[in-house]
């Protein structure tokens, strides 16, 4: 079976920026694994995940996702996009729509264009959305408007939308950053559990090494756009983690980039 993600010598700079956000990254993620991305602010975690989601243009290197190589010059085929699900750092929900409508939006890429336009979901779409809501523990919120929800509830809606999409690769950008420790553990249990139950691969970025250890089988440390370590969770030393965050203090350039 081909790996879920295969990256070879990948470099990328954001448009208008001279400093690369990703520098010569190589990474292999086997199908079904849960991987955590650790790294200080501005390390390039969001950039890497967005690139794997097919949203960035103009990078160098070779990247393939779910067995298909990404093209640095054009977005992926629309038919492939539902296979990669993204949980956005800021949720990116439609505030005035209901929770159920937002979760059904995750299925738009799997509907016929006419159904997607009319918003007439099949019973299968509806069942999948309701199951995702139930998995996330928010079945009772289905008819609520998103703008009436708390941050933690929104987080669950964002994850439910991603699960309803039935992705084979789940990319989650700091899915627990705005939650208290108990909530954070719950959400990660949910996310990695759902991925495992569906045979999907999960990559999530985090600022909390202890949570990464608990929920990921492998941990990738990124700093200044480079991979600093890439190890099975059991092999990760306290020292490596500490160095990951200390390095940036010695590298003023990276700190500056994080601000700009």
């Amino acid at each position, binding site marked *: 079976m081909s790996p879920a993600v295969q990256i070879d010598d990948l470099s990328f700079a954001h448009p208008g920026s001279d400093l690369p956000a990703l520098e010569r990254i190589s990474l292999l993620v086997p199908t079904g694994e849960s991987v955590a991305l650790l790294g200080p602010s501005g390390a390039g975690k969001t950039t890497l995940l967005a690139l794997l989601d097919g949203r960035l243009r103009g990078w160098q290197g070779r990247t393939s996702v779910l067995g298909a190589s990404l093209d640095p010059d054009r977005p992926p085929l629309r038919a492939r996009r539902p296979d990669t699900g993204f949980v956005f750092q800021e949720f990116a*929900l*439609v505030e005035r729509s209901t929770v159920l409508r937002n979760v059904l939006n995750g299925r*738009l890429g799997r509907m016929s264009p006419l159904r*997607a336009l009319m918003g007439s979901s099949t019973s299968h779409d509806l069942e999948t959305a309701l199951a995702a809501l139930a998995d996330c523990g928010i079945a009772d919120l289905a008819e609520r408007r998103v703008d009436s929800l708390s941050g933690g509830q929104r987080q669950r809606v964002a994850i439910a939308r991603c699960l309803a999409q039935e992705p084979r690769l789940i990319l989650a950008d700091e899915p627990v950053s705005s939650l208290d420790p108990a909530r954070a553990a719950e959400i990660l249990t949910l996310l990695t559990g759902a991925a495992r139950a569906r045979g999907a691969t999960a990559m999530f970025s985090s600022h909390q090494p202890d949570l990464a250890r608990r929920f990921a089988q492998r941990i990738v440390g990124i700093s200044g756009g480079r991979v600093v370590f890439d190890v099975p969770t059991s092999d990760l030393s306290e020292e490596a983690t500490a160095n990951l965050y200390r390095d940036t203090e010695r590298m003023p350039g990276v700190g500056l980039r994080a601000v700009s």
Partner: protein
Amino acid sequence: MRFRGFGGFAASTLVAGAILWSFMTTDVEFSRLLSAGPRIAEFLGRMFPPDPTVMREIMKGGAETLRIAILGSLGAVVLSAPLGILASETMVSPPLYRTVRTLLAFIRAIPLILVAMLMVGAVGLGPLPGIIAVAFHATGMLAKFYAEAIDGVSRAPIAALESAGAGPLARLRHAIWPQMAPVIARDTIFRFELNLRESLILGIVGAGGIGFYIQTYVRSFQYDKAASVTLAVIVMVVAIEAINVALRRRFA
């Protein structure tokens, strides 16, 4: 608040000068001013009791005003949809939206009654010049509101739907429209209310509607009839206001 320093002095001199100038150059005779009170009272007296026999004219004129407001508003919506897009920062380039916004500001600056007079000159008496005038005048505001509604749409959910594989039409329907629709509905209703209120007087310049009867009765010294029509207009304005308050509550 007190005026201070030279700026304050200059401002008060200017205001005093303006008032003096107006008095000196307008022929306000003190004796006429004194007799104005009783004259107005007498005039109002002649309006009483209002003549209730003009009910038919009131209904006819009121219905025409309503039609002018509805069709004028419809015209404004049709014009504002494309102009709103062209005046939006997120849809077109800066030179284009700045030009369109300036154009809209010019349109807003022309009073409706002036547009109506010009239209009467151009297409003749009746409701048609009224409809055209309302459509033109209201577009100045409505297109600006529509542009703001478009620019107020948050980008993140659109990108999220694209990432999930939704096509452009599905994104428009499920990410852009839900954010825009309530704003557009509220703005359109607000503008319709203004259109209805403002078109009540269009008839005075011959552009159709209930205002026509006020003008006709005043000119022919039938003040009791003019009074009835005026009362009807007041009742309509209050009714529009009441409906508007109720609607606003729904959209809050």
